[in-house]
């Protein structure tokens, strides 16, 4: 993301005008998101392969996930996407107070997601479902359930890492909004951060059914 320190209203020296700067930042973020899609794509491919190899083990392992917490988290994230959209809209309109409010709401919702996720992880730890030497699943699918949980932790862990980075970025933007850095003329960091935030939400929208719902009728 290109937030340029000197540009409260002026564009950075190497751009011709504000418009070019905004368009360039947005395109840069889209290019980055393409990278992100491929990044998660590698995991989705691995998931697809192992699920087709071990459908029964994946079904059995999936039942051990906490559907209620997963569903609540899905709701939380969808709400956070909404507040993010409202933040971008407020920025466009130059409503600084609303912008600060919505950014704060997005950060709170994002953090809620992470707290719930942390509860889930702790629970898995107590149930010996963390892959490695202490993994215990029982039954004939022990080994392949471990692959499921490996992928579960990789996918949700990577997603959570993206959430943490996103919240960090939003905190910076919150501070800058508070200081009045953004206006109807200059809001592209908010715009670009919004793109990122929605992307992270969309990843979860795919993760939730693939991990939590595959064997529930």
């Amino acid at each position: 993301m290109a937030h340029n320190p000197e540009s409260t209203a002026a564009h950075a020296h190497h751009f011709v005008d504000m418009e070019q700067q905004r368009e360039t930042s947005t395109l840069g973020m889209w290019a980055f998101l393409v990278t992100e899609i491929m990044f998660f794509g590698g995991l989705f491919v691995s998931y697809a392969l192992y699920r087709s190899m071990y459908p029964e083990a994946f079904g059995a392992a999936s039942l051990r996930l906490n559907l209620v917490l997963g569903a609540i988290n899905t709701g939380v994230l969808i709400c956070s996407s909404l507040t993010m959209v409202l933040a971008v809209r407020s920025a466009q309109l130059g409503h600084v107070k609303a912008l600060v409010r919505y950014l704060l709401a997005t950060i709170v919702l994002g953090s809620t997601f992470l707290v719930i996720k942390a509860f889930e992880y702790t629970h898995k730890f107590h149930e010996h479902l963390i892959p490695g030497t202490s993994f215990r699943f029982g039954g004939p699918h022990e080994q392949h359930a471990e692959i499921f949980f490996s992928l579960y932790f990789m996918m949700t862990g990577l997603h959570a890492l993206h959430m943490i980075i996103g919240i960090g970025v939003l905190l910076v933007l919150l501070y800058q909004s508070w200081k009045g850095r953004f206006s109807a003329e200059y809001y592209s960091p908010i715009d670009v951060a919004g793109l990122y935030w929605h992307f992270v939400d969309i990843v979860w929208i795919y993760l939730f059914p693939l991990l939590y719902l595959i064997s529930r009728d």
Partner: protein
Amino acid sequence: MWSFPLLPESASTIADKIDALFYFLVAVSLFFSLVITIGLVFSAARYRKGSPASRKGALNDYLPLELAWSLIPLTIALFIFGWSAKLYLDMRVPPANAMEVYVVGKQWMWKIQHPEGNREINELHIPVGRPIKLIMTSQDVIHSFYIPAFRVKQDVLPGRYTTQWFEATKPGEYHLFCAEYCGTSHSGMIGKVIALEPAEYEQWLMGTSRTGVAMASSGAELFDRYGCRTCHRQDTGPRGPALDGLWGKAVKLATGQTVIADQEYIRESILNPAAKTVAGYQQLMPSYRNQLTHEQVNQLIEYIRTLPPVRGQ
């Protein structure tokens, strides 16, 4: 050391066919290299700066020419692809009457099991004039079974079987190399393939490597020792499916799919029974992964394939 070969030995039915394609590719490469070299040298010399040669009619693009040098290479490429694909299919599909030999790779040696029970390490004796099919697996990392004189190579993977086949045409000793990097002594994981006249081969079978017990008989003994018979009999009912006449049949699985009972399926069912449960049975069988060696699994497979169908089935 000063007499050294520039062409590899050619000692299998496929080798000469591959060489023909190889030399065709060499010819194509030489032709295009020459065209480019002549084009470069000619242009560079004739049109050097200050030369009097006429530059009239110089072109910046000329579609017919560009299409020509796109489509002609394309045609040649497709021709090579077709030729090669045909050969490749021949190399990958073994004849039905091929003699089967089991290979187990490990860091850093090749272990060979002949159906007659003969076993060897880093050597493979075969008769000439008979297709040989290798059924190969690894007990650790990925290896690759490579016989340059036969122009054949196939990676040997842990956790599954891969196969390759060839038919030697000339008696002799040939290099056997591991071609997939497998750790410290990768370059020491080599051996010999010794092709013998059929009569000599029969003699060799009766010689020092002889164990006197065919693989199937060793398999039968294991089948008893590990109590396989307890569940896999005609009269054991729902505990486990009977194995008589299983070989080559289609097996219906609990998931609704069907698989053909071949080496791969039987191997997986012994080492990882939960992977493919037979329709109508419960998954009760434990894994024998830590109790059987790869050679023993091979012996069990050879035994199971000899079980005749029960009359009336």
